[in-house]
């Protein structure tokens, strides 16, 4: 049985306690919302996309250490990056979480801190926590593209 240290790496607890990009944005920022029906976690992603660049991102909502730290790391990773790169990262992250995405992941964008979430795969129940914010970001990007 994998131990708690495999799941709760220090960097994860750091992002949990000191979440990056926490807050909300006013329109014209787009907003999308995700739920984890299993544990009740809720996440809101606010996004400003300009010229295909993620100009700003804010995260609101409540959740467990895994969902919150994942969201925090995600926000740090995509902020200021081209939309295309953000999408590639979503796909890469889901691959890391063993979630069926077709094809091979685009590894051109480094995972950085996100690597620490790799241990989540050993705790299948928590994968949904880790992925929640990423699905919500994906939706927000769709809305922004409309």
């Amino acid at each position, binding site marked *: *049985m994998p131990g708690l240290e495999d799941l709760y790496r220090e960097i994860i607890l750091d992002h949990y306690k000191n979440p990056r990009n926490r807050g909300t944005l006013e329109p014209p920022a787009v907003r999308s919302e995700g739920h984890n*029906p*299993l544990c009740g976690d809720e996440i809101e992603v606010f996004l400003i996309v300009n010229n295909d660049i993620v100009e700003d991102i804010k995260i609101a909502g409540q959740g467990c250490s895994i969902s919150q730290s994942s969201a925090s790391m995600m926000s740090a990773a995509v902020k200021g990056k081209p939309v295309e790169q953000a999408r590639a990262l979503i796909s890469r992250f889901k691959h890391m979480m063993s979630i069926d995405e077709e094809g091979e992941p685009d590894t051109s964008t480094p995972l950085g801190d996100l690597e620490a979430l790799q241990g989540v795969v050993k705790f*299948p*129940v928590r994968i949904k926590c880790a992925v929640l914010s990423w699905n919500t970001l994906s939706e927000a990007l769709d809305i922004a593209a409309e």
Partner: protein
Amino acid sequence: MSIDVQRIRADFPVLAKLINGQPLVYLDSANSSQKPNAVIDAMTTFLQHDYSPTNRSAYTMAAHATDLYEGARANVARFINAPRAEEVVFTKNATEALNLVARSWGTANLGEGDAIVLTHMEHHANIVPWQMLAAEKGFSIRWVPLTSDGLLDLSNINQLLAGARAFSFTAMSNVLGTINPVKELCALAHQHGAIAIVDGCQSVPHMPTDVQDWDADFVAFSSHKMVGPSGIGVLWGRESLLDAMPPFLGGGNMISDVKLDGFTCAELPAKFEAGTQPITEAVGLSAAVDYLSALGMHNVRAHERDIATYAINALTDAFGDDIVIHGSRDIEKRGATISFAYRDVHPHDVSQVLDQHNVCVRAGHHCAKPLMRLLGANATVRASFYLYNTNEEVDALVSALAEAGDFFTL
């Protein structure tokens, strides 16, 4: 290649049962099948060591039970060649599955002036839900008639389907044994812009199923007829249709959020699985699917083709004009479910005499009263054979029937 029936029989503990020293002759599998040790043991082991609620709690045992439950879904999807596991919805039985389609798809898609098409050989489960909804919504029901040898009479099918929204039909008659041309019927439905709903209760247990090859839109069937446990059934549906449908039962698990002023639905398949599911039953169904897959459904069908042939010949040889076997004699067009009338002995009386010899058959209307009216009977005797039945059991049926004949013509 055929299957080794004696080995199979050893897998089914009930078949070793002796009543008054005589063996059980179970010929009621179209009603509900017996269960092999593989299924019973899977359930028992789960209950003894691994039982836990699914899709709710997060501890390891709950995660394991969830994996088994979702694994059962994936296994069923594979068994019927469904494109996606999420399209497989667990229900309590095929009846609930058909009610789900009628109520949920029907409410959203059927209204005054609309029509749906059923057939004269449908089971009540594929009639009554539509009648209930029709009484509310005011759409009409059209009926595909039968030929004299118990096949669907498709001579007017284009007229019947013209403007219809749905065509719902059984893949195999539970009374006549007739195997319908499902693929062709789905294509006909689609040509007329109707969706195709297949009642697979009698076909899925007895022959290979490929919902994609059929190009069906919904397929319903029950675990308990395919060597699986009672208490669980399956609705497979095309994702785009299921996604667009309103929910059926409301409660836990099927929601994404609930507020005082309303709720939002969960994604598929949770959307259609309200409340605590038949967890142990899903584990048992998964074992049943494994059991059948290991045998090979082509082989099951081959065995049933053989035994149906043997049975029809034996009954005809023994009783000649004294027996009327309903449905088709063409073995390619029928399964091993054989309904018959025997002299003028009432089916209930026939079944009573057979029961004295532990020969278990069903006497009655088989939940297909409209078909019974067509046959001009209010009941038939039905002997239905499955993968564990033998030619010797056919012989037992024949000799018990002879006694019934003697008894009622004292």
